């Protein structure tokens, strides 16, 4: 919402400066986004007198002028304007001045061989109008040398206020003036509403068929108008609001809308067929709107139509076919009330924004239809002449008043601010609220005020939030108690463990392309309005995003990429907290000690998975490896980790070669995904650890080299050996694996821990025999 200081002063008697007003507006909730003064850009331009005008020696259409700009010197200027002549007064721009209309900075130049030290300007060059037929001509009494903006009354600051969606009243200059007056910046001037006496009955009948969408339609006809240009004062104000003047009738409706937040529409009666009716649009009905675009309507939209066609998307935009033009002589005015929710829905469905919509969807003042019509009519009669009909009123606007029981103590109890009751009453009164003891009547222009909390806000914002005292929250005695949940603690530990292990945490998009999601089994969640095909479905896995990030890094020249992300997978049943990681490029770069660069393999992914599961509190020692992690993974070089086939907590390994191709994943990349929410909660055991004393006797180790069946998982051998004597065997570690002449050889180191007495040779032989027997059950035999 933009308006100038001069306009504001139409409604507000004040001596405050523009800066003071802007600060106050922001302080009372009408945030000023910009305070500008268009005159600043035109500051160098001066009122100047043309002393002489001679024909240019080299060009027929140019003249050489001498100009007095009040500087005491005679300035030579080359000018192409046909109206330039000796003795006239105009606007002079010196070298260095910026001409906004042609985006050009003046400098001393020779034009066809004659020096020119500045320019006499046209309206269009100064962006003051469209006229470019000649230079601006000022009246003979204009003071030579005076700043032009000052002389022309252009020195008028413009406020740009961001009006929040609840404030219907602040969508007009008068409403803003009312707020300022309540906040102590001046006094609100009384509103002059002309008395209009119609001399004949309105010739255009008005009917309401869709009273839900349009409960009220007031109007009148005016015959015999002249639709020329609107007066300068109105054009200046409209321009300050960012509106382009069009014609008097259009400008007047716009002006009333901006001045009072009251949109209206004028139809050219000559273009209407029969009466007007406010009705629901018919399915598929079309209208060419004033923005020259065709809209297809739906039955929940309210339109204004005559017997032949739709002329107005009710409350949003008029139609091109019945708009007023310079030839218009008879107009029909519409001052209606449209239901806010319907306007919002219609506007959203059509993707159409307009000044009218932004007002009707906030809700215009339902008690201002008659006044609005009178003010509109009065301005038209003044500016365009004509003869008004009597007013016509179809339907009733919803003017029932809301009354709130208000305990003035709420301002202290909710707002935390002490304001004497009388001051509160004064504030509410000045904002237009009615007060009868504790009954507060809400003014018709504040449909956002619904209860006591709103009244507290009204008082607090006018007093100023600066006055709200900072009040400490009550604090529980003692040291602050821990608040993190188990899942939150787990997340933190896993994240920092990953970072400690050399992985970089990234955050990738939750939405991915459909093709990427399909490679991971597809997504159950598809966006109805994605911003691109690359961000179309919710990810079923963290890996596509990480793989793409790894790819980008390698493309940028990174040698080694270790990325992880902690985030959610969006599945049909729920959102699952997951850690994904991708290792790509070199695990170890070439090195003077270790030699050639080495890539990652599936065991690197396994190491990360196990370390992070351990950090997450999973019982890592009990985890089993289940070969083949699924269709996205390499069938022979991937596995799942779980506490059983139904409690899978991670998958890791190489990705499936066809997936690598499809995603353009870096070759040699390995990955893991940890399903953190699948990890069972550990049994709570309190803070004290189980009792433990390190054994006094030394442990002994024995190595066993075994020839095993080629397909025997090493883990089963290690588990079987560990189970051979649970008392004595403290640890089993596989340390060698090679293809021997007589089969696959696995070598394990077994640690035996004596309890009270050292083992005898016999005992050790016995344990060894049990170990060999256990291995034998798996088809293994001692290597000879």
């Amino acid at each position, binding site marked *: 919402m933009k308006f100038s200081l001069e306009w504001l002063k139409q409604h507000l008697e004040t001596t405050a400066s523009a800066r003071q007003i802007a600060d106050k507006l922001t302080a009372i909730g009408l945030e000023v986004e910009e305070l500008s003064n268009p005159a600043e850009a035109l500051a160098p331009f001066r009122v100047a007198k043309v002393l002489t005008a001679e024909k240019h020696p080299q060009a027929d259409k140019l003249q050489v002028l001498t100009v007095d700009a009040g500087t005491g010197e005679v300035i030579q200027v080359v000018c192409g304007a046909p109206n330039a002549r000796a003795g006239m007064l105009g606007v002079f721009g010196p070298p260095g001045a910026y001409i906004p209309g042609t985006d050009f900075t003046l400098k001393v130049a020779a034009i066809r061989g004659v020096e020119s030290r500045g320019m006499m300007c046209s309206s269009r060059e100064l962006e003051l109008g469209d006229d470019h037929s000649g230079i601006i001509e000022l009246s003979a009494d204009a003071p030579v040398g005076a700043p032009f903006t000052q002389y022309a009354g252009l020195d008028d600051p413009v406020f740009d206020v961001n009006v929040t969606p609840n404030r219907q009243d602040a969508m007009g200059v008068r409403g803003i003036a009312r707020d300022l007056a309540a906040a102590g910046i001046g006094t609100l001037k009384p509103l002059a509403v002309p008395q209009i006496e119609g001399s004949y009955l309105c010739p255009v009948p008005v009917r309401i068929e869709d009273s839900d969408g349009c409960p009220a339609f007031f109007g009148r006809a005016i015959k015999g108008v002249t639709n020329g240009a609107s007066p300068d004062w109105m054009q200046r104000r409209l321009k300050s609001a960012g509106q382009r003047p069009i014609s008097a009738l259009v400008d007047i409706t716009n002006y009333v809308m901006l001045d009072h937040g009251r949109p209206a529409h004028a139809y050219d009666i000559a273009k209407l067929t029969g009466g007007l009716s406010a009705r629901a649009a018919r399915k598929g009905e079309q209208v060419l709107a004033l923005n020259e675009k065709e809209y297809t309507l739906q039955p929940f939209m309210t339109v204004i139509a005559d017997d032949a066609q739709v002329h107005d998307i009710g409350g949003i935009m008029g139609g091109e076919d019945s708009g007023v033009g310079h030839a218009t002589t008879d107009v029909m005015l519409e001052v209606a009330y449209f239901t806010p929710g319907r306007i919002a829905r219609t506007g959203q469905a059509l993707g159409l924004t307009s000044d009218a919509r932004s007002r009707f969807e906030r809700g215009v003042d339902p008690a201002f239809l008659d006044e609005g019509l009178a003010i509109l009519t009065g301005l038209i009669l003044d500016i365009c002449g004509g003869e008004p009909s009597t007013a016509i009123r179809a339907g009733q606007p919803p003017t029932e008043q809301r009354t709130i029981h208000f305990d003035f103590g709420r301002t202290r109890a909710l707002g935390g601010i002490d304001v004497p009751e009388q001051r509160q009453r004064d504030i509410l009164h000045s904002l237009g609220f009615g007060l009868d003891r504790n009954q507060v009547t809400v003014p018709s222009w504040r449909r956002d005020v619904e209860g006591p909390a709103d009244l507290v806000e009204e008082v607090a914002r006018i007093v100023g939030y600066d006055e709200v005292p900072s009040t400490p*929250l009550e604090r529980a005695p003692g040291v602050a108690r821990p608040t993190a949940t188990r899942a939150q603690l787990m997340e933190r530990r896993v994240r920092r463990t990953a970072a400690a292990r050399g992985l970089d945490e990234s*955050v990738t998009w939750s939405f991915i392309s459909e093709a990427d999601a399909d490679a991971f089994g597809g997504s159950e969640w598809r966006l109805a309005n994605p911003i691109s095909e690359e961000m179309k479905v919710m990810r079923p896995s963290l890996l596509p995003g990480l793989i793409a990030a790894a790819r980008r890094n390698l493309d940028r020249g990174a040698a080694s990429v270790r990325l992880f992300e902690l985030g959610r997978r969006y599945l049909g049943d729920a959102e699952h907290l997951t850690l994904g990681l991708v290792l790509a490029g070199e695990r170890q770069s070439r090195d*003077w000690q270790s030699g050639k660069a080495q890539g990652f393999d599936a065991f690197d992914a396994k190491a990360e998975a196990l370390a992070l599961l351990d950090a997450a509190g999973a019982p890592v020692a009990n985890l089993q490896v289940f070969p083949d992690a699924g269709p996205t993974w390499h069938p022979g070089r991937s596995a799942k980790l779980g506490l059983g086939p139904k409690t899978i907590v991670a998958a890791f390994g190489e990705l499936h070669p066809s997936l690598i191709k499809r995603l353009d994943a870096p070759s040699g990349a390995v990955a893991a995904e940890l399903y953190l929410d699948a990890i069972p909660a550990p049994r709570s055991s309190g803070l004290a650890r189980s009792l433990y004393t390190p054994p006094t006797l030394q442990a002994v180790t024995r190595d066993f080299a075994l020839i095993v069946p080629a397909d025997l998982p090493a883990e089963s051998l290690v588990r079987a050996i560990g189970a051979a004597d649970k008392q004595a065997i403290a640890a089993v570690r596989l340390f060698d694996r090679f293809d021997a002449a007589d089969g696959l050889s696995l070598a394990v180191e077994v640690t035996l821990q004596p309890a009270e007495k050292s083992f005898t040779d016999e005992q050790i032989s016995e344990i060894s025999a049990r170990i060999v027997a256990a291995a034998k059950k798996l088809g293994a035999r001692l290597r000879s």
Partner: protein
Amino acid sequence: MSDALLDRIASTQSLADLDAVRVALLGKSGEITARLKSLGAMDPDTRAAEAPRIHALREQVTDAIASRKGALEAAQLERKLATEKLDLSLPAPESVRGTVHPVSQVMDELAEIFANLGFSVAEGPEIETQWYNFAALNMPENHPARAMQDTFYLDPRTADEEPRVLRTHTSPVQIRAMEAHGAPIRVIAPGRVYRSDSDATHTPMFHQVEGLVIDRAITLGHLKWTLETFLKAFFERDDVVLRMRPSYFPFTEPSAEVDVGWSMEKGRRVVGGQEGWMEVLGSGMVHPRVIANCGFDPDEWQGFAFGCGIDRLAMLKYGMDDLRAFFDGDIRWLKHYGFRALDVPTLSGGVGA
């Protein structure tokens, strides 16, 4: 006699020579051993005279051998050390160093600061129903405020399912937390949020933190104090100045936009001082209708809520200038702006890293 022996020992040049001399003197058939043996054949008087002499000689020789051995060993070590030289300016094996993303770090900082004020961390789904994202927050259908937020809608999975939305703010967690934990309550809710917006300063996904306090006598004054306290702790500056302005959010009444003062330091805009203002937070007293929507009596319970962009907090504190880089996964950026694993924010160590 003894001088000659001692010379012989002293003149040995290697441990092997020295050992040969030792055997020749003190071995089974060594010279001194032979002399000791000869004592047995002596008459008592001669023996009494000879024994101390021979024993003294043996002791002298033994000591001399030990001392020579020490000297030879030292010389040998010296020679060995002279050959054992490493160029320790060569690089040691590299260890990799990972990083924590700034968004995660800031979330941990927020959790730490607010834990001290008695707030716990609440969570909620990102795929949200329209009830929780809008209606429960006093934004009925066609409410103009819904148009303020560019909402991503999801295709319904069945014909009669109401389309879900990607939550446009963390505010739905207010409702869920109150439903789950009741009142009084103090929570913050950090997390991902989504709006269909994309330019230099907006990404379609970003992070917010929501704060909620519901109790019996909470006022706008408590909100002001909480935000001041939080921002001073977060930015680790005492000159953080807040400005509260009346504003509008459907779910709060009264509502306040919060600006924080900034100043220029080394050509960059930093939080602190008051050369200018920038918007950082939306806040207000929870709307009575929202409290009622959670199943509580708004005449008994009241409180405040606030919401703030986490990415923006990170940018203001740590000086990043491009939001889009947060979500690119460029390891050069992550290593520059990320945090070390052990930079855990604590109250005793400071919440900044």
